[in-house]
């Protein structure tokens, strides 16, 4: 079994069995471990909240969650887009906005189609390396000017990235992450603190 062929099912199965010697987890590289971490987060949050998507069908919503977490992942400092509630926020707005329905709903289908053409499976069925490969193509405008067929993906990803950022940076963890210290009551406003060079 090569690392590219490690599927989501394999990862979950392995995780559920625990770190058994010789399991598939021991042979997958670091980026797959990150992927696994995101998956655990996703599954955990799914169970805890029991959120039923308003607009996206289950498969699309699972894909959306994965993408959100990949755009702004959990790291050593704080949680990621899923913990921040970005997928629910995006689903709510999309359920009320026909332009988003077209761009995000259609975009997710485009992504699965593109993955099927290239790798023979949906985005979620792709190996982490394959997922990274397609995202690296649609995450940059310049790729669409080289390969026009990528443009729908680039447009989709650009909107999703903006909305994921909205969801993350308006969350409690996102606000703490940037270090915003206001929204409080002060008797007097102290002004700019001493900063060398200002």
């Amino acid at each position: 079994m090569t690392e590219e062929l490690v599927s989501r099912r394999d990862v979950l199965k392995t995780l559920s069995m625990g770190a058994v010697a010789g399991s598939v987890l021991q042979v997958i590289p670091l980026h797959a471990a990150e992927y696994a971490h995101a998956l655990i987060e996703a599954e955990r949050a799914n169970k805890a909240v029991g959120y039923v998507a308003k607009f996206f069908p289950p498969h699309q919503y699972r894909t959306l969650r994965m993408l959100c977490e990949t755009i702004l992942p959990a790291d050593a400092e704080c949680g990621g887009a899923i913990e921040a509630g970005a997928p629910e926020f995006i689903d709510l707005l999309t359920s009320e906005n026909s332009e988003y329905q077209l761009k995000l709903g259609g975009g997710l289908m485009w992504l699965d189609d593109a993955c099927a053409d290239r790798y023979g499976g949906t985005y979620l069925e792709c190996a982490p390396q394959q997922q990274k490969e397609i995202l690296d193509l649609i995450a940059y405008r310049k790729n669409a000017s080289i390969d026009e067929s990528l443009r729908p993906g680039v447009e989709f990803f650009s909107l999703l990235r903006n909305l994921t950022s909205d969801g993350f940076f308006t969350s409690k963890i996102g606000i703490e992450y940037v270090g915003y210290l206001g929204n409080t009551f002060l008797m007097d406003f102290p002004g700019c603190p001493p900063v060398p060079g200002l």
Partner: protein
Amino acid sequence: MPNLNARRTVYDVCIIGSGAGGGTAAKVLTEGGLNVVMLEAGPRLNPEKDFKEHVWPYELAHRGADIGARGRLQLNNEFMAPNGFWDIEGEPYTTAPGSTFRWFRSRIEGGRTNHWGRIALRFGPADFKARSTDGMGDDWPITYEELAPYYDKVESFIGVFGTKENVPNSPDGVFMPPPKPRCTETIVKQACDSLNITCIPSRLAILTKPLNGRPACHYCAQCGRGCISAANFSSSQVMIPMAQATGRFTLIANAMAREIVADKSGKAEAVSYIDKPTRSERRVYAKAFVVAASACESARLLLNSRSASFPDGMANSSGMVGRYLMDSVGSSLAGYFPQLEKVPAHNHDGVGGMHMYMPWWRFGRKNDFLRGYHIEFGGGRHMPGVGMCDWVCAEHEGYGTGLKQKCRSSYGTIIGFSGRGEMIPNEKSYCDLDPSVVDRWGIPVLRFHWGWGENELKMAKDMQETFRSIIESAGGTVLGGPIRAGQTAAISEGGTIIHEMGTVRMGNDAKTSALNSNCQAHDVKNVFVADAAPFVTNPDKNPTLSIMALSWRTSEYLLDQARKGEL
């Protein structure tokens, strides 16, 4: 059948509109002993319930983006005080072919003063003498010196912070101490000093000391959401309670004025209005009428007040009602300032608005356009909100931990600049009644005609050059394109600065103006206008303070007339 007419209540004064002008008139007239009724097209305001002060974005399902993201990057986002919209369902307006104009209306007690920027600038002496100064537009029938005592009264009553600076044609007022500058303002001030651009503490209607039972600001930067403690000025929380305290004030909410009805002698005797909840038409009678529905809405009401005596609308024998519509010239540019990445996390909130601004600093010099503009600016470590990372996402692209960190390091590093300049009134810009469209209440709607003049375009270009030079000399990088949604060119779309003025202008000549020097209709002596409709010019100073000063003056004149038995 009882004779309803015989028992009908006749108030001394009926005020239409509860915003800056209407609220001021209500306070002055009731305190002067008159019995006043006010019509407001929207509901009463309940700050405790209606304001979202101190709410975090994550406490709202839409995080501030509002339903379907309609408030994303818009002025009327979910947090703002209940202040109306660019579009109100069932109450349309139209634009003539070739014109673009947007009209922000508020239908609630207090009107747009619930959300306004609190920028409280006096007009200057030259602003009242436009034609005498440069031959364009017209002179006002009053001088700065005549209005100055009323500026004093308004500032003393509402509370305005600022500093005495002696800037030519940007008069000082009665000021409370200003708040200390934020880091962003320190940076910009240094750059302005090096460019010889005047940068001084701003002048905002926000208390920095307690006044008349209102507490001082607590520095949460959320004035636009409405202030539950009324530390900033709104008509609903500062003017109307004073009127109510007299016991001589009646506010009829959800009352959409349809027309002012004249008696056989040509005097106004009633306002016919729609009671929105019952969709029924009612009348309220008074001896005098103060129209303060906002410039365009006041023009609409007068144009709709047609009768045999007034076939073209009330107070409109001159044909001037709706004419000389003005908005401020707006232009915006933002910059990224790398030195702000090094600023440690701190509370940057301050008041809801800028602590510093640039008054017009080239007054009296030779410029390649007439009149002038002031500069507003803001940015830094404000409460994160939707759209905050759009520019990082667009510039940095990609995804993952790198993007997350880039958003954080870029947080608070943007400063946006906006110019607010004087528009010279022109023949192309006016509103009239659309001959074929009515609103859901059956009232004919306004149709807007709009065109900027050459002078305004030159001014907007100058603004862009100035912003660029400030950004660059402060060590920043210009971010591509104007930052405000809907703004595609260097100059703002007509109406979008929300400074409509001049549609029922005052003047000494009844042939070229609708109102006399007391904002009293030339044609109908018991009709007054008390919003920005009487303004003859639109200086680069935001209109609200002048609306209140002029309304106060008009109200004192009306009181004097009442005492003399002239009503």
